[in-house]
Structure formats: structure tokens, C-alpha cells
């Protein structure tokens, strides 16, 4: 299969686009693989790609119960950033950001990573202090960050209300210039195609219905498309983690599934050129290349597996959006969607070997799974291939909760809905 490029597009135009090949094959599952990844989302596909590309593993399958990329990778607000506080998180997400910066070429698929900046607004002196701590930590770890004054923010973001006669006036903000947005679906499709070109079997409509074990050791899977044996099984299923792990006999995990809603307006000509987050309520806003303003809010607040949200968050998000940008009031919301996020007990992810022999887990991504995709894929692949964590995910263990080594990014404690 040939590379995508302006040239291939032109060449195919001359043949009426009749010669495009399927972006990935639709193979029948084989009986045996070296590594099987459960979950054909961004993370699972990226893991398979890096396993093949970097770690030279042949004979890999990715199993997806529905259509590839139908989960959170296609249901998020597409923000990519590394503006974290805890060094372990900054390092991981900063590495991810660096992979993003070369991703389109790496996988020969334009993922439209647009580095337009992510600005966190601060509304109290205390919040400014917190942002300062975070910004300094980022700079110390080699990420980029800048503190902006209210005047500077006002100048950079037309339409944003920077007056003082409002409930939460803007005092300043923390900006990460290299952060930005990407085209969410392209990540799934791009990694799928790239993995497929490395020989990975991507098997859609193949649901795992049971684990085959020898004692405690996982040796294979029962699926809706037959039995598949595997030396190693990686689980990368986001909101479905608890369900899949239950099939493996792991009854409880430090994870809850919650619904996170996102919203998009009708397409508009360029209006907001950066990603802005409200500091006095959960809201982030950006504009997609197609022109829709994309909003994300808070989780609905209770355990949920429904990929749809409810009215209160709808109203909160609109109120926060119009409070920040009073010029958006007459613009219309076009669509809303919900994704099931795997909220961990400390707001940080888990990428680890175990908890059973032959089993590997990648979960607990909370709000942060999309931007993590390249690094999560790489680190999970490393963990599976080498049977030990990559330096970057060495802190993302499952036993950190028992050992008291939580990575509580927000300091809210073991209440998943608050992260």
C-alpha cells in the first residue's frame, strides 16, 4: 500500500479515486497471537503500532467489540497539552506532546495537530499561585509555559470578557503555547492504518466474552469470533475496564466509569484561535478546523455507562461559556455527545504489568486519555514487550494506591468524580 501524500491524491484523482485501498485490512482472527490487545481505540491501536514498529513484535492482534475508534478517541474535545503539576505526569504528557509533534509524518496520516496554545484562566490570587507552581514545575521539566496578565489575555483573545464587574473576573492565566488540538478520529484511523501496515491484525466486531487461564496465567481469550490464544494480553478499553477485567477474574479496581459530555456549535468562520479553560467552573473551549466551537464540561457526577449526558451539565456548560464569552450567546449548539471515562482514584492513569501473569493493563485515563495516546501506546508497548515499565510509566502502577504513592494531580483525594 502506498503512502498518502498530495501526489497520491492527485494520482488517484486521475483514476477517479477507484484505486484507493482499504485503510486497514479486515482479517479473520487467527487462532494464536503473540500479543492481543483488547480495545481498538486510540490507545490500543497505538500500542499495537509501537509494539510492531519499535519492539519488533510480530503476530499482534487488536480486538474491537464494535467499530474501531468508536469509543472515547472519537468522543473527546481533542485537546493535547502537558500542563500538569506532578513531575511524573508532566514528563509523561510532555513526551506525548513530542510524539504528537511528529505524529502525522510518523504514521503518514494527517492528524491535524494544531499547536494554538491552551490557556487556563485564573480568577483568584490563590489560583494564580497554584498556576505559578504548575507553570514553574512544567518549565523545570522542560515543558513550555507562560504566565499571562489580564491585559495580555484581553489582547490575545478577542471576545473574552475581561471586565471586573462579573462574578469571577479574570486575574491572569497560565498558557502553554505548544499545546493545542488535533483531529480525534484521525488518531484512531491513522494508527489503525499504520499498525496494519506493520502487519497487525485489526479485528472489528469481535467482543471478548471470557479469558482463558492456566491457573492465574492468562493464555487466551474467548471472543464472539472464536477462541484466540495469546502469550500476552493487553487491556486498553477505557470506560469498559472494569467489565473486561471482571472477565479475567479481577472483581475490583480503583476505577469508576463516568460520563463526560462534549458539545459543538454550528460551523463558524475563525472566532477563537486558542484553547481557553474557565477557572471558576469546569469548561474548556476551542474551535475546530471545520469551524465548530467545541466545549467540554465536568463529568455528570455519578457512575454511568450511558454514552449520553443530561440537562444540568448542558446548562452549566452554556452558562460558563456565555459568562466567558458573552458574544457566543446567539450562536447555537449543534451536537452533544458523551464518552465513558475511566476515572481513577487519584486522577492519574495506570499502565502496568499484571495484575495477573500474562495480563497487562492500561486504564484510568480520566479526562486525559486522548492527549496521552502516543505516549500511552509507546509505554504500554514497552511494558508488554519488555515485561517491565518504561521509565515514563514507572509510577503509573496499580499498587500505588495500596502503597500510598498516589499521583493526586488535583489533591481532591479518592473521589473519582472530583478529578
Amino acid at each position, binding site marked *: 500500500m502506498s503512502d498518502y501524500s498530495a501526489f497520491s491524491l492527485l494520482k488517484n484523482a486521475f483514476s477517479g479515486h477507484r484505486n484507493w485501498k482499504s485503510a486497514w485490512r479486515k482479517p479473520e482472527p487467527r487462532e494464536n497471537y503473540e500479543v492481543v490487545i483488547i480495545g481498538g481505540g486510540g490507545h490500543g491501536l497505538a500500542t499495537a503500532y509501537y509494539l510492531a514498529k519499535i519492539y519488533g513484535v510480530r503476530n499482534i492482534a487488536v480486538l474491537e467489540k464494535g467499530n474501531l475508534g468508536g469509543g472515547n478517541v472519537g468522543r473527546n474535545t481533542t485537546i493535547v497539552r502537558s500542563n500538569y503539576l506532578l513531575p511524573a505526569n508532566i514528563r509523561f504528557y510532555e513526551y506525548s506532546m513530542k510524539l504528537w509533534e511528529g505524529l*502525522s*509524518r510518523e504514521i503518514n496520516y494527517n492528524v491535524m495537530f494544531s499547536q494554538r496554545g491552551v490557556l487556563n484562566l485564573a480568577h483568584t490570587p490563590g489560583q494564580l499561585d497554584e498556576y505559578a507552581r504548575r507553570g*514553574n514545575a512544567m518549565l523545570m521539566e522542560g515543558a513550555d509555559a507562560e504566565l499571562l496578565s489580564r491585559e495580555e489575555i484581553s489582547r490575545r483573545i478577542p*471576545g473574552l470578557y475581561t471586565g471586573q464587574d462579573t462574578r469571577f473576573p479574570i486575574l491572569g492565566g497560565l498558557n502553554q503555547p505548544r499545546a493545542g488540538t488535533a483531529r480525534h478520529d484521525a488518531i484512531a484511523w491513522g494508527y489503525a492504518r499504520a499498525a496494519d501496515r506493520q502487519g497487525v491484525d485489526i479485528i472489528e466486531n469481535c467482543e471478548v466474552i471470557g479469558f482463558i487461564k492456566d491457573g492465574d496465567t492468562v493464555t487466551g481469550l474467548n471472543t464472539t469470533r472464536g477462541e484466540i490464544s495469546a502469550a500476552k494480553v493487553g487491556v486498553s478499553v477505557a470506560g469498559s475496564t472494569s467489565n473486561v477485567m471482571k472477565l479475567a477474574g479481577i472483581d475490583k479496581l480503583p476505577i469508576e466509569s463516568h460520563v463526560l459530555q462534549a458539545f459543538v456549535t454550528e460551523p463558524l468562520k475563525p472566532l477563537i484561535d486558542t484553547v481557553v479553560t474557565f477557572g471558576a467552573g469546569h469548561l474548556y473551549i476551542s474551535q475546530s478546523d471545520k469551524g465548530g466551537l467545541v466545549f467540554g464540561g465536568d463529568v455528570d457526577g455519578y457512575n454511568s455507562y450511558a454514552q449520553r449526558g443530561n*440537562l444540568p451539565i448542558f446548562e452549566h456548560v452554556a452558562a460558563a461559556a*456565555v459568562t466567558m464569552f458573552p458574544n457566543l450567546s446567539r450562536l*447555537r449548539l449543534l*451536537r452533544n455527545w458523551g464518552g465513558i471515562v475511566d476515572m481513577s482514584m487519584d486522577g492519574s492513569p495506570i499502565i502496568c504489568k499484571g495484575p495477573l501473569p500474562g495480563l497487562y493493563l492500561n486504564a484510568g485515563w480520566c479526562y486525559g486519555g486522548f492527549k496521552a495516546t502516543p505516549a500511552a501506546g509507546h509505554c504500554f508497548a514497552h511494558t508488554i514487550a519488555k515485561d517491565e515499565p518504561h521509565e515514563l510509566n514507572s509510577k503509573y502502577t496499580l499498587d500505588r494506591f495500596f502503597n*500510598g504513592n498516589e499521583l493526586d494531580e488535583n*489533591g481532591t483525594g479518592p473521589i473519582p468524580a472530583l478529578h
Partner: protein
Amino acid sequence: MSGYRLKDSGIYIDTAQELRFEFDGKKYVGYQGDTLASALLANGVTLFARSFKYHRPRGVYTAGPEEPNALVSLRTGDRHEPNCHATTVELYDGLVARSQNAWPSLNTDFMAVNQFFAPLLIAGFYYKTFMGTGQKFWHFCEHFIRRAAGMGQGGLSADPDKYEKTNHFTDVFIIGGGPAGLLAADTLAKIGAKITLVEESNNWGGSLSEEEGLINGEPALYWANNVVKILTKNEKVTVLPRTTVYGYFDDNTLGAIERVSDHKQMPKNNEPRQRHHKIFAKRVIIATGSVERPIVFEGNDIPGVMLANSALRYAKRYGVAVGNKVVVFTNNDDGYHSAIELKKMGVNIIAMVDPRSTLDPELKTQIEEQNIEHHPGCMVTSAKGGKSLNHVNIAHFSRDSGSSGSLQRINADVLLIAGGYTPTINLCSQIGTKADFVEEIQSFVPGESTQPFVACGAAKGQLDLESTLCGAVEAAVQTAKYLNLDIDTHPSIKVEKANRKAIPFPLTDIPSTNSSAKKFIDLQHDVTVNDLKIAHREGFSSVEHLKRYTTMGMAADQGKTSNMNALALIAKERGISIPEAGTTSFRVPSKPVALGALAGRDVGNHYHALRRTPVHEWHIKNGAEMVDTGGWHRPRVYKKAGESLFEAYSREAKAVRNNVGIVDVTSLGKIDVQGPDAAEFLDRVYANSFQKLPVGKAKYGIMLRDDGYIFDDGTVWRLGETQFLMTTTTVNAARVLSELERLLSLYWPELKVHVSSQSDQWAGMAVAGPKSRSVLESIITDMSFSEEDCPVMSVRKGRIGKWPVMVARLSFSGERAYEILTPRNYGLDVWEAIMDAGKPFGITPYGTESMGALRIEKGHIGGPEMDGRTTLGDVGMERLSSKKGSYIGSVLKNRHGLKSDDRKTMVGLISDGIKPLRPGSVVLKNNEIVGHVTSATFSPILDKNIALALVRKGKKHIGENLQVVFPLKDEAYNVRVVDPCFYDAEGKQLYA
């Protein structure tokens, strides 16, 4: 010039009332009752818009909210509003509209050059290119892509209009004011049900405007108008026109937007622009009707090509003929009805094209009577023209090859398409209701209800009047039974001479002789048959992939006119049936909703409730700069004329150390804990012990979370043997109370304790400084302030005049200090009385900034040291809990990571610099990060810049010189590590 006004006036318009309006700078006249589309059509306008991607000329396609083409920008200035459907915008005098997505003009759009590049701009082309040399190249390309994409333009000025919210609690919520909705409402209203009935447009009767049939012997629309009259008079029925239901949520909760003033130039008499209705219904009846379905062929987007039933609506409703020479292409009998009626009204229908070779004899007679040329067994293979339709080509239809024989050309300016009807099932789909495919109408209808709703009428696939009305009765009967209301199960409703049902002959993708011809599936997003085929070829064959890859059905119309054709096409490509290909789920909102309407009045100053203390106004009057703390406004500093923040808090802090100050502490959480087991309860809650606290004494308390980290701190006052008052930090007040209630209710029911919030019942103020006793002694009666009667940590009751006060000798600043509580209503009086009494002593009100400075000087922990990640050991408080048994967090605080001697612990830092240290700075030792600055201040009493910091193995560094850096501002300081208590370590000042 194509469209024109017919002799017979339309039923919706009033020709006596002329309205002036403007489109793209040109002035026109329409009538009251017109939509922008009907008025423009009547004025002969054919070109309304440019398409999303190829900038192709587009006209009006429909007569309703399903419109994919005719999107315009409405109004000017602050009220400018992009992407409005010309087909639903009600005309008003002075209306100004502009076309969008075209430059320099609608007629001459340079971006139409995209059509030339169309062979490259296939589905998903952007994934395959613009990668070049990397991010820089992509950012360069993106700049232009963003400008080419998007439809209307958003403005920068704030919306001047207001929005309202209202709630409805109703037995039955009926969506749709067409025949089904009206009959269901009428039937249920008669038996006394509480009903809310909404209709999206400002006219009732829905499709009855095109109905020839009689209901109970009367013309159908006459019947409808009567029903509306009766319903409007019924007190138990709420009737809402101009109201669009956009979302169906859990538990039969629905959201709807009423367009209160959108049909006026601007809202009048303090009216809102729109009103957001939240409906809580026991039962929902969905009677949302259907949308006519296009047929896909070459050139099916040229202005002049439109839906047949829509053309009939323009004629019947607005008295508008859509063209001069009209061809109708139908695959069902309903298309004949449209054609014949239009012809009767004077529209020049010249030909009918029908792929079916046989026709009902009655219809045949009728079209012969009307002199309409008939082409049975034929189909339109292409529509030709540029900015308007020029002619259509038709050919004989054969099932195997599609078309056969030679083409016949028919000159026409309008081509009407009748491809059957698609039930509007968006709302049902939002709550996860599966859709069932009905072969006869080639469409999906709602399946089994997932919530208490019932669909009827065209929305349920009941496409003729008789079955619609039967369906409505059935829905009403079901609903009555659900609500336990008695109902006559066979109300008399007689239908005569009704229109024919549309049973479409399936037609997908009519082959074209020209391989590069554009056949549009989704007109709004410019998705063609070819795009779908390419997507399929590339493996994007599942409906979800197809939709995302081609963006089919993802435009503002959510594919109302396109989804069924796309499904049929992909099913054919994959060689499976339509239901096997599946259907996509519809998302909320089913029609785009203004953000302002969803936000209502909870914006700006009203975004969040503001909590004020009773002294709030006094603070403001006395120069306080307020700061938000956990929802409260507290004074940060009281600035005197010309003072900087720094000068102000230094002055305030000095006053406390040297003299006396007063601070408002009303915002602290206050919880009353009562019961025989109250002491035991507090012992379990706090990390330190309370059993032995005597009555009339207070004590500092620190609370952990179950996971062993510090949660909150405060003081506990023992007011009686079984009564305690505990205070919390402002920020955690609500969470602490909930936690206490949860523990008592769920886990410790054996404890006889009750907790209740008293945060709003008490006003609180702290009077601190060496002269605090003198001030209070001079004004508080009924108690003694002597060292013996009121020692440190004692709690006493006294009075200031008629106002009772509770006094606790507590200190956060390290100075002699008293915390005073008084019932909230007396808060201001007591505050002012103390200020008066303190005047001779120079009492100074102080804010959170100096309070922070004072507590940092004393090394007391505050918010930044209790950031949810610190342990007792980290902040040097481990000894507080050393002798205790079990309490919240007492087990998990011993986990390895929390006990590690590598943890960061609290120390003090003294800077040798002139500039204050900044919180959030990084602490370095030999260029290695060892910690961070949590709180920092200038200490007026020490005349030094000091800070608290969490530093790895902190105590070990005491006496060392370290570096503090603030990379965000490129600052660096040398600091000396000291014990966190900078001032009066022996605590002598408490007795000063």
C-alpha cells in the same frame, strides 16, 4: 426570475400587511405571515447560499427546519446571528439578512474555484495531505483551511438580549401541533388530563395545510383550528407555539426553546428573546411528523431543484409559485397529489416523471385532466443549469441497468422531487430507543419505548390522514390508561377523501452518464455519492465510520433529508439490507439551540451565587478589596487612599502585632455537634483527641481523609457536656458537614449524635493584638476577661448591649486574640460596636492578605499547605495524634508512601532579597529540585521576606542556604532554611 405570488392568497399570510425587508443589500416586500424563504421566492430570488465545501450555488430545498441549503445570516450589529434557516425565519418589517460563505458576493463567489479542485477534495482528503515537512507546514496550511471552512461569521460584541427559563410538570407532553398531536391532545383534554402541547412553527395543523380530506365532515385545517381554540381555553392545557423540543433526557425530562421575540425586530417590553422550557412529563406523545425524502441524481443541488411537498406548502401556505416551468419527479402517489394541487392553483406543472410503469387509473385521469405530460417508467438522470435550473434529462428506467434508451430533455426552471417520507424520530433516538425498519415506506420508525413515550402519526410511519388519526387515538388511549384516566376507547372521528399515502418505489443513486458528475447525498456538507463510495472502498463502511469519514449527516440539519438515502446507498454497496446497515443514533440537540437560551440568566455576575457576610457593605464602604474564597467575598485588604496592596497589608499586619485589629471570619464553616456521644464522635473524626476537653474550652482540631492525607482544620468549642461547636475552613465547610452526616448515618448509627450546619446562623469576627482585651473589656459585659476567668482557649458568653456574643480566646495570628460569634442578624451591629470601642485603641480592620502574613510568621498551616497531598508528618503535626487510637485516616496514613522519610516536609525560608518570594516557586539545592514554596509574604514585624515551603527531608536542611527560583519570571533568590515558626516561638504574645 422564477418564483412569483399566486392569485390565491396563502392561508398563512395576510396580504393586507406588507413588510419591507432586505437580503444582501437589496430591498424586497413580503407579507405578514411569510417566512424569509417564501418572501424571497415570491420575489423571484432563486440563489440563496453557497455550499460548504465547493461553494456551489444553492437555492431553497424545503419549506421547513429540515432545510439543508438556504442558510443566511440574520440581523446586524449586536444581534447578528449566523446560520439561520431562511425557511423558518418569520418575516418582520425591517428584517435584514445576508448570504454567507461567499466572497465577494453570492453571485460571484471566488471560492467556487473549489469546484475545479473537486476531484482532489474527496472525502477525507485532508487526512492524506498537508503533512509536508512537519508542524510548521501544517500550521501554515491550517491557517487557510480554517478560513475556507466554517459557515457564518460570529461577532465579538455581547448579546444584548435576555433569556428566561421555566419548568413544566405535566401529565402529558405532546410534541407536534399537526393532526396527530392535536387529536391526541383533544382526546386527552376531554378527560381532564394535564397537558402541555408544543408546536415548532407559529401555525397549527402541520401537514393539514396540504390535506384535501375532511375530518368529521369539515375541511381538515378547519377542524384543526377548532381544536386549537378549544385547547387554548382549557385551563389544564398549556399550548406553546414557536416552541422547538431539542432534547429528550433521562426520566422523561425534555428541553424546549420558545422563540418569544425572534419574529420581531427586537424583544419588546422587557420580553426575553427566547425562553428555555424544561418539561417533566409523566408521559410523552411524539407527533413530530415526517420529512420528505429527496432522490439522488446528477445535479440534484442546482437552485430550482426542491422537494415537491415543500413546493405545495409554498403555494398553499404563502401563495407562492416556486417556478414557471415545473417538472415533478416522483416515486410514489403523493408526488401526484402535490403536482395536481399545484396545477390547480395555477402553477405550471409541465411533466411528471415516475419510475413506476403503472399508475392508479384515478390518478391517471386526474393528470390527464390537468394536462400534465406523463412519463411513466422513467427517471430523471440529471438536472442541468448553473445558478438556476435550465433543463432536466430523463430516460427510461430499467431495474437491471438503471437507465436505458436515449435521453429526453425537458426545459424547466424547477424540478420537484418526491421520494417518500422519512419519519422524524430524532427525539426517540436520543434516549436510546432502537429504530425499526418498515419496508413499505423504506424508512425507520421508533421501536420499543425506553421511556414512557408513545409515537403517533407520521413520526410513527402513519403516513395517511386516517392512520395518523387512528394512531393518535391509540396513543391517547394508551396514555389515558397509563395515567389511570377513564377514556372512550373509540371516539368518533371520520375521515373522507384523504390524500394518498406515499409508498415509495426504492430508488438509490441514479446512474449518471458523466462519471465525474456530482450527486449530492448530504447537501449541507457537500457529501456526494462518490464520497460514500470512496469511503466504502477505504474500509469506512460501518455507518459510524461513514458518517465520521465523510461528515455525512453531521451538519446543522443532522442529515434530516440525507440519512435514509445514505443508508440505502451504503446498504446497496455492501450488498446488505438497510436495517443490516443500521442507523446512526441522533444526538441532542435535534435542532441547534442558542447558548444564551441554555445559559438563561446564570451568566456574568449571576454565574454563581455570591455569599456575603453581614458586614459586607461595611467592608466595601471602608475601602476593602474583596476576594473570592469558597463562594464568599472576603476583604483581601482595606486600602487607604494611595496605598498599594503591599503597603496596605503591611500596615494591617503591623497593627495586629503592635496594637489591635479585627477581621471578619463569618465565612468559616460552623457545625453544631450535639448528643451524649458527641465527644466520642469528634474523637473518631479528628486526628487529635477531644474526650478530655473541658466544658468552656476550645481546641485546635485537624482532620484527615480516609486515605490518610490532611483534609481540613479548625477549632472545636465545648459548649456543654453534650454540645460542641466545630469550625472548618471556608472552602471545605460543605464537604466536612456531608462527611460527618455520612459517617453518622451509614457507619456509626450507634453514636447518639446530631450534626447541623450553623454557618449561616452566626456572624464571626476575630479581634487580635496586644490591645484586644482592652477593646473588648470596654464593651462586652456579663463576662470577665481576666487571665483567670478567660485564659487562653477558653470559651465564654457575654453581651454587647442587647446582643449576645460568644467569645473564644483563640489565636491564628499568635497575638492575644478573641474570636467572637453573634447571631448573624447582629453581625454588623456587633462589628460596628467593636470598631467604635476600638477607636481609642486604634483598631484596624484587616483582610485575608495580612491574616496570611500573620499566620505565615507563626508557621501555621493554611490552604496551600493542606493541598490534599500532605500528611500530618509533612506539616510537623504528627505528634498531635501520637497517643490516639482510631480516627478517620488513622490506618491508611501509615501506608508506605505516606511514611517515607523522603517526603517533603514543611520548613521556613528567609530570603536575603528585597523582593517578596512568590508562592509556587521551586526550591533548589545544588540545582536539584528539592521542594516548592507554598506560602510567602513580606513580614512587617521581621522586616524580611519569608515563606513556608515543602522541602524534601525539610528538617535536615535547617540552617542551610538554598536557592529559590521562579522560572516563569526568570527570578532567583538565595534563602536560608529555618524552622517554620518565624515569630514568637515561645508564644509569649498570646498573653501580651
